[in-house]
């Protein structure tokens, strides 16, 4: 093995991204729990984590930029750094989505508790599972596992569509519950976006490992 310093820097880049990923996963999990429990403290914790996640994004970007400029990486190393740059953006945006969920839960706390026709905890569980699997694929450099994330995205999208219809009907039929329905609608949308970002991460893992760009392809292209 040569280029020891470069290899150490690549390891450091991966490690930092995983630290950031841990923070984002925790924020998603806390936001989801906050919805179920309407816990104000959890909401605050999620919102407080956002600046730290943003700082991590800048640090990782800088390290990636330094490596591109100083080491002129090639082939799998170049693809790895490009994947990290993309994943970094997706993680930061997932952090934003978690913060948005927390803000909506704080709104819901101020409203009367009503029975909403949408299973947000299940949607959250599915989105979180996508994130976990995409990150595990990144940790292990496993393109097969990354591909399985792409399949899950359809389920999340479908649940979001169902939530849209059900909550739309609720707003039509019980206008007095429209504020709660709108908050739930936004939360479902936030979770669906988190699923999209997990899909992006999975696509980046496939690009890194296989050198294949599967973005904007249908599932049948990716799973021939």
């Amino acid at each position, binding site marked *: *093995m*040569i*280029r020891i310093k*470069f290899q150490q820097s690549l390891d450091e880049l991966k490690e930092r991204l995983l630290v950031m990923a841990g923070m984002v996963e925790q924020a998603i999990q806390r936001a989801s729990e906050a919805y179920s429990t309407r816990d104000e403290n959890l909401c605050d914790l999620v919102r407080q984590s956002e600046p730290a996640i943003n700082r991590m994004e800048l640090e990782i970007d800088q390290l990636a930029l330094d490596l591109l400029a100083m080491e*002129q*990486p*090639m*082939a*799998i*190393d*170049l*693809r790895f750094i490009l994947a990290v740059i993309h994943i970094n953006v997706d993680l930061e945006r997932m952090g934003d989505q978690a913060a948005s969920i927390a803000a909506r839960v704080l709104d819901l706390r101020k409203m009367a508790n009503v029975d909403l026709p949408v299973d947000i905890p299940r949607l959250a569980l599915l989105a979180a599972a996508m994130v976990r699997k995409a990150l595990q694929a990144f940790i292990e450099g496993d393109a097969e596992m990354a591909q399985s994330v792409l399949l899950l995205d359809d389920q999340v999208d479908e649940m979001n569509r169902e939530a849209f219809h059900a909550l739309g009907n609720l707003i039509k039929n019980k206008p007095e519950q429209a504020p709660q329905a709108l908050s739930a609608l936004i939360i479902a949308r936030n979770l669906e976006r988190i699923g999209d970002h997990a899909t992006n991460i999975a696509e980046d893992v496939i690009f890194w490992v296989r*050198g294949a760009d599967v973005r904007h392809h249908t599932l049948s292209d990716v799973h021939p």
Partner: protein
Amino acid sequence: MGVDIRVENLNAWYGPVHTLHDVNLHIPANHATALIGPSGCGKSTFVRCLNRMHETNPAARAEGKVLMGELDIYKDATPVEIRRRVGMVFQRPNPFPTMSIYDNVASGLKLNGFRKKRVLDEVVERSLRQAALWDEVKDDLKKKSGASISGGQQQRLCIARALAVDPEVLLMDEPASALDPVSTAKIEDLIFKLKSQYTIVIVTHNMQQAARVAENTGFFLMGKLVEFAATTKIFTNPSDKRTEDYITGRFG
């Protein structure tokens, strides 16, 4: 205009040492093609087979077919004819030190029997302009010797000298490795301009340089052509693990 080069089952030896093994390759006309690989991998031997310079070493020999356009260079032409059609630039600039700049550029033509001053003047100016050196030396053409200008200028002078005999192919064996970054950039700009008129083959250890100047890149290892593909493919997603290990610095 450049011609394409087709290499079929090319083998080369230095004495008993088999240095090139069954190389098959198509180098397209009017493109720059880079050859990379660790020291001793055979890439310089390969380009020296393209102008029959390899066989100038008495212990060396080559077998196989090299077609320049329609011309089979080992069958249908003499080494002298080949070298008029194939110019070569080496790692260290090698102008004739006692000749003026003018005479350096005109030397190939004079060797080929051209004597008319008007023709020589025209060719010298055209070649120096093509090599992006004219503006820097036009006032000292006959006053300064080839060795009195800077290293970067000397290398462009050698390129002008190669171009003066109107070749179809330009071989460059690490043409910028002894030059500073500004002179290197000038040589690379020159390659970019010249490839519309010539077929350029460049051997380089500088992979960024290969990535910058060449449309196609070949990777040599232990006398074998391991992989030949579009440069973007080689440097982002090579097919062969050995290519990837080399370009990512994992060996070599």
